[in-house]
């Protein structure tokens, strides 16, 4: 039998939260009109930007750290096959059970089966990008299992029947009054006299979650790092709710993207400096939990590690795109992105928003998308990235792999042909001068589509009477 190799499989369509159903420009248009969202985003991103800049500025070796992080990630991706097997061996040797999932569908099935086997119908969850990517909560719900998000912002998103809009601050689009309403509506045990004072809101969530922590038999987490050498999984967080999930229940199931593997324990030193400073703008995050397999009599007595591909190997196959897998999900690129700051996370239609989402989502899904164009290529993301992912160059690369509209392609072909020789270019410049006919007082105020997209908000100067090259020739 002969087989044609069609490339590595991408993340399946229709499962999880990678595929948005609206093009970015249309989704962004709605978000731009939401004045509350604009204000929240502007305030939050400016605050985190300033905090990050302050703590990054403290380190003289920041650029060296970035280069170390980049080199470690490049090494990891080049040796991913061996490191993953090493991780499996180490986790197994310490009493954990490793599962391999080709895609979101397989990963969800594995987790559903594991939870069912425990006989419980409610699990607590640590905030996790990977489980949001594969749509695990929906898969659990379909199986009659309730998943309770325990990260405060994730809880707000979940209770609001909403989607996260930021990697680090998933409820960035909500204000205090909205959160109060959500709590009163969705938390049966909430005190009706609850105000929108932040401490009161936090205490209400705390009371709600404590009951869940104490009753849960199963917890589900993601992973920031998985150390191949020792089989140690690491989760970093701010609230301590993650620590509750990771230590109280009998069974812990960790869902980890295969790119999260780190070669050695020592390498963690680099990433634990890069991540909190880039992410929350802190020198160190409040809670760093690490565990290796199972410790008898202490913490969960059953530990499952589910390793998920879901398109990652396909990304790895592209030399110009694979460094998107280096991402440590810090969200620094979101906070410095002028497009994200205004359009917000939902416009990207994916669990991964912002600049990193614009390069990761198209590669994981392999789908045609407007996301690579959702950037002015200003380069702020590359400068902020703690592992030096050259996002602007990758966006340019991905644009060249996207199908182009027929008329646009013809126009760009014609312009390239015209500009291919100075003689033709000069002729083109003469044609451009006809624009003087539609100018009033030296300004063009209206052009036909698609250029009306420019003149809707901006004037265009009239072409000059004499081009530079004609002036030079007559000089």
């Amino acid at each position, binding site marked *: 039998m002969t087989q044609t190799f069609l490339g590595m499989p991408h993340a399946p369509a229709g499962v999880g939260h990678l595929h948005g159903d609206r093009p*970015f*420009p249309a989704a*962004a*248009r709605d978000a*731009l009109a939401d004045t509350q969202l*604009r204000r929240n985003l502007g305030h939050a991103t400016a605050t985190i930007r300033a905090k990050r800049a302050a703590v990054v500025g403290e380190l003289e070796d920041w650029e060296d750290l970035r280069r170390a992080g980049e080199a470690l990630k490049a090494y990891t991706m080049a040796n991913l096959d061996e490191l993953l097997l090493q991780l499996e061996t180490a986790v197994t040797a310490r009493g954990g059970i490793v599962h391999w999932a080709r895609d979101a569908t397989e990963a969800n099935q594995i987790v559903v089966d594991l939870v069912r086997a425990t006989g419980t119908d409610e699990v607590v969850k640590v905030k996790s990008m990977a489980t949001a990517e594969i749509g695990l909560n929906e898969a659990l719900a379909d199986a009659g299992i309730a998943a309770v998000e325990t990260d405060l912002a994730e809880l707000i998103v979940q209770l609001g029947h909403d989607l996260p809009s930021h990697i680090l601050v998933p409820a960035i689009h909500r204000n205090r009054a909205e959160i109060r309403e959500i709590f009163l509506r969705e938390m049966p045990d909430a005190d009706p006299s609850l105000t929108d004072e932040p401490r009161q809101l936090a205490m209400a969530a705390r009371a709600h979650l404590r009951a869940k922590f104490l009753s849960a038999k199963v917890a589900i987490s993601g992973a920031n790092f998985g150390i191949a050498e020792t089989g140690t999984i690491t989760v970093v967080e701010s609230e301590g709710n993650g620590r509750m999930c990771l230590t109280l229940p009998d069974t812990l199931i960790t869902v980890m993207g295969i790119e999260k593997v780190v070669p050695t324990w020592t390498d963690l030193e680099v990433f634990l400096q890069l991540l909190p400073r880039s992410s929350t703008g802190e020198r160190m995050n409040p809670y760093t939990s690490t565990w290796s397999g199972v410790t008898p009599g202490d913490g969960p007595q059953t530990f499952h590690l589910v390793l998920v591909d879901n398109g990652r190997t396909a990304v790895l196959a592209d030399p110009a795109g694979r460094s998107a897998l280096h991402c440590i999900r810090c969200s620094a690129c979101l906070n410095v992105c*002028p*497009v994200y700051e*205004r*359009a917000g996370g939902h416009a990207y239609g994916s669990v991964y928003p912002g600049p990193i989402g614009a390069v990761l989502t198209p590669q994981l899904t392999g789908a045609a998308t407007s996301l*690579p*164009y*959702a*950037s*002015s*290529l*200003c*380069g*702020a993301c*590359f400068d902020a990235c703690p592992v030096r992912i050259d996002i602007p*160059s990758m966006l*340019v690369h991905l*644009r*060249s792999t996207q199908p*182009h509209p027929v008329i*646009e*392609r013809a126009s*760009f*072909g014609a*312009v*390239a*042909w015209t*500009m*291919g*020789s*100075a003689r033709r*270019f000069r002729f*083109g*410049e003469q044609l*451009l001068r006809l624009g003087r006919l539609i100018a009033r007082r030296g*300004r063009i*105020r209206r052009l036909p589509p*698609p*250029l009306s*997209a*420019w003149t*809707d*908000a*901006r*004037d*265009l*100067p009239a*072409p*000059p009477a004499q*081009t*530079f*090259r004609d*002036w*030079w*020739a007559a000089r």
Partner: protein
Amino acid sequence: MRVALFVTCLADAMFPDVGRATVTVLERLGVEVAFPPGQTCCGQMHVNTGYQRQALALVRNHVEAFEPFDHVVAPSGSCVGSVRHQHAMVARNAGDAALAERAQAVAAKTYELSEFLVDVLKREDVGAAYPHRVTYHPTCHSLRMLRVDDKPLRLLRQVRGLDLVELPDAEQCCGFGGTFAVKNADTSTAMLADKMRNVLSTRAEAVCAGDSSCLMHIGGGLSRLRTGVRPVHLAEILASDS
């Protein structure tokens, strides 16, 4: 010193004053300026919109036009960024290793105007006078691709009579981004609105930058709203002596 002027397609066709001003500044400093007539466009718009294959002819044309010169100077951070960071890549991706090498050689001797004045000619005072209140917008590609740093500001600080006022959130993109301004016009306009708000808050008469493209965008918004603030290219200020 014989220097080739890479005027850029946009300045050639739309902003010839910027090209003339660049010639004025360079000649005032004793530079012999040549204008290679074969030049057209660096092809950045094609590369950045996803038409790398179509840009190949433009890269070849650019290399052939500028190869014979010792130095190439352009009044644009963005176009120099493309020459430096994209030309060899476009040739390599098309399988033309020889062209990639030639493009790399041209890139190595190509300078944005402020780089050429400060780094090559070692001049910060170019003998200019411009008695106006001006704020400076550092364009993204000059800042983050070329790392021109404060070179344009050092040049502006030496201009007689110029009242330089700091632009709040100066390093944020104005929202131009080439075809981004049309493909994502709403987001681009939202970015432009904030840039204009910051420009207006300085009470400057003119907003200065080193790229005609970004100035066309910021100036287009300022003009539409009848703000009375004009865009002015760095070269135009440096060429001015009254």
